[in-house]
């Protein structure tokens, strides 16, 4: 998957930066430190903003492209923050054969966004996920902690209307 770059402004805090620096200091001499540092950074910030990837590169003395190459390779790393309204559409096998691809497309169309991105105001994020283990409800999507199952494309507009 090609990852989308975020358009949401970076809102990192001093406290988060201190946490990140502590993680880097702790792990920097471990072989292959970049992966665990990125994982921790994602825990701290919720995603991997450009600014954070640059900080990591500078501190480790490696090129920022090297960090970016890793962060875009692994699907678990997110370059976008979760929106206030975080939409996740399951594209696991069961959901997919039941048409979750169409549902995802419709959501993107209604919100005018790409899958794997967050709206510039940080309100919505859309993510395609692997199987979430609710195959009995296929096709399924979650919005924040709500689960919506046995969907058709026609249900999408109504569900989104609840979250305006």
């Amino acid at each position, binding site marked *: *998957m090609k990852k989308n770059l975020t358009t949401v402004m970076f809102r990192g805090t001093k406290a988060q930066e201190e946490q990140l620096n502590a993680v880097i200091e702790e792990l920097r001499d471990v072989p292959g430190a970049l992966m665990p540092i990125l994982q921790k950074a994602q825990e701290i910030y919720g995603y991997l903003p450009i600014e954070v990837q*640059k900080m990591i590169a500078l501190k480790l003395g*490696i090129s*920022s*492209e090297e960090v*970016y190459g890793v962060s*875009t390779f*692994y699907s678990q790393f997110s370059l976008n923050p979760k929106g206030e309204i975080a939409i996740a559409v399951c594209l696991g096998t069961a959901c997919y054969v039941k048409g979750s691809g169409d549902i995802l497309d419709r959501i993107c169309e209604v919100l005018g966004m790409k899958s794997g991105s967050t709206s510039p105001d940080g309100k919505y994020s859309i993510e395609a996920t692997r199987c979430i283990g609710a195959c009995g409800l296929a096709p399924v999507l979650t919005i924040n902690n709500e689960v919506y199952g046995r969907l058709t494309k026609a249900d999408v507009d109504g569900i989104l209307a609840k979250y305006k």
Partner: protein
Amino acid sequence: METVKVIINGKEYAVPAGSTVLEAARAANIDIPTLCYLKDINEIGACRLCLVEVSEGGRPFRMVTACVYPVTEGMVVKTNTPKIMQSRKTNLELLLSNHDRKCLSCVRSTTCELQKLCLEYGVDELKFSGEKNKYAIDDASPIIRDNNKCILCRRCVATCKHIQAVGVIGANDRGFDTHIASVFEAPLSETSCINCGQCIVSCPVGALYERDDTDKILEAIADPSKKVYICTAPSVRAQIGECFGYEPGTDCEGKMVAALKALGFDGVFDMNLTADLTIVEEATEFLGRVKNGGVLPMITSCSPGWIKYCEHYYPEFTENLSTCKSPQQMFGALVKTYFAEKEGFDPKDVVFVSAIPCTAKKFEVGRPGQSAAGVPDVDIAVTTREVGRMITKAGIDFRSLDDEKFDDPFSIGSSAGAIFGATGGVMEAALRTAAEVIEGKPLEKLEFSEVRGVEGVKTASYKLGDITLNVAVASGTGNAKKVLDAVKAGELDVQFIEIMACPGGCVNGGGQPIQPAVVRATTDLRAVRAAVLYNDDEKADLRKSHENSAVKKLYDEYFGEPNSHKAHEILHTHYVKRGL
């Protein structure tokens, strides 16, 4: 040397233990095709074109990648079975399925390693017609990247990261979406790319090339209101022959001059002259810094790739850089001030072109502090490759040209200026001048052989008069990094450092004719190409920059003395602390 016995295509060979199957086969004069392999730089077995069948310990044959698979005692290797041929062919077809097959006008047509293999394997172009990636071309900097032609071999990535210690390009995303780009998909112009062009000469296909400025030159020549002058860097004459089928290491100075005159330039000048001028200015600057407690070590400033590297990665060393403009910029400045005044023309009516082995010089022409006459010192910088293309396109039969000589008044260059093109050359030229200035008598021996050779880092110590001078020479910014880190750590105590951005110096510059990986695996281009310049030096009568009569005349008529106020205004510049 410990050897092992291997059987390749039915014949037994003793090969060095620890070699790869590829090295063993090539030593036996059996070629195996490669595409991603670049000796010592990129040995990753990614493209799977070097597939061979091997059997070890009597076990059945299996396919391995020859470029990374080590030989073992008694190994049986088959390099050309139908199964291998078919596999290689399929791999080529898969590569082509996502490759922009615009071969007709591709800058690398006929020098493309992929094209050559497709010809050899009779690859029909549309075996797998599926989805194709479509990428925007990054053409904001002198280095142009066209990912539509990229085959993901990673030769550029390895060169940028491991040889140059720059690392601004890498593989982003994954699977079918994998592509070579910079961090956050930024154009190269917004990264700390130094424009050295080593990625270009590493690329097997047409995915990387320099911005072509030749049309601008031809238009200027056709404009009767413009005076169009060109000067050629020392290492262009040593390599341009490669564009016309000469072996690497053939000196083509006379033919090159003849070809440029045939193209219609109003004057063809020798950049060796401003190399000499650089030496006189730089040696004077250096001795001044030594005497007056200036910033040391002083570092040479001829290589614009190195300058940008310093500004990004070692901004704390920008005060150490000599303030001398590079020979290219000095030349343009001279033509638009001294020569314009002498001949009575307006510098605005001049188009000054420099022919250089370098892609970073295309960036340098636009730098601030490089316009002595109020207009840019140099208007257009073209690489050796572009010069070759202009000559070919104009229908000039290079090989049949009679030698011609550079034009006055910029025709005289010493061989100390000529060796600028090889790593250690600037240092040697500077030492020749500095030694005679300090000792006040002619040197008995002009060769400073300790600073010659292709090693990435060289150090030497010389006693000149009562001064002990410690020097270091580095080529390739990866090696520059080693030297600067050592200076920073207090492990290296030197007063003068020569740094060239490209490994081996300008002879191996990013704008030089591209030799395929198979040639680079067997020939040290750095040494072969540099030999042209050192041979010139050995034969030359004028071997010291400060004895160049044209340089002396410049000081007598115009600058007064080295490092004079006027010289500073016209021949010196300043730098920017860019950071990362």
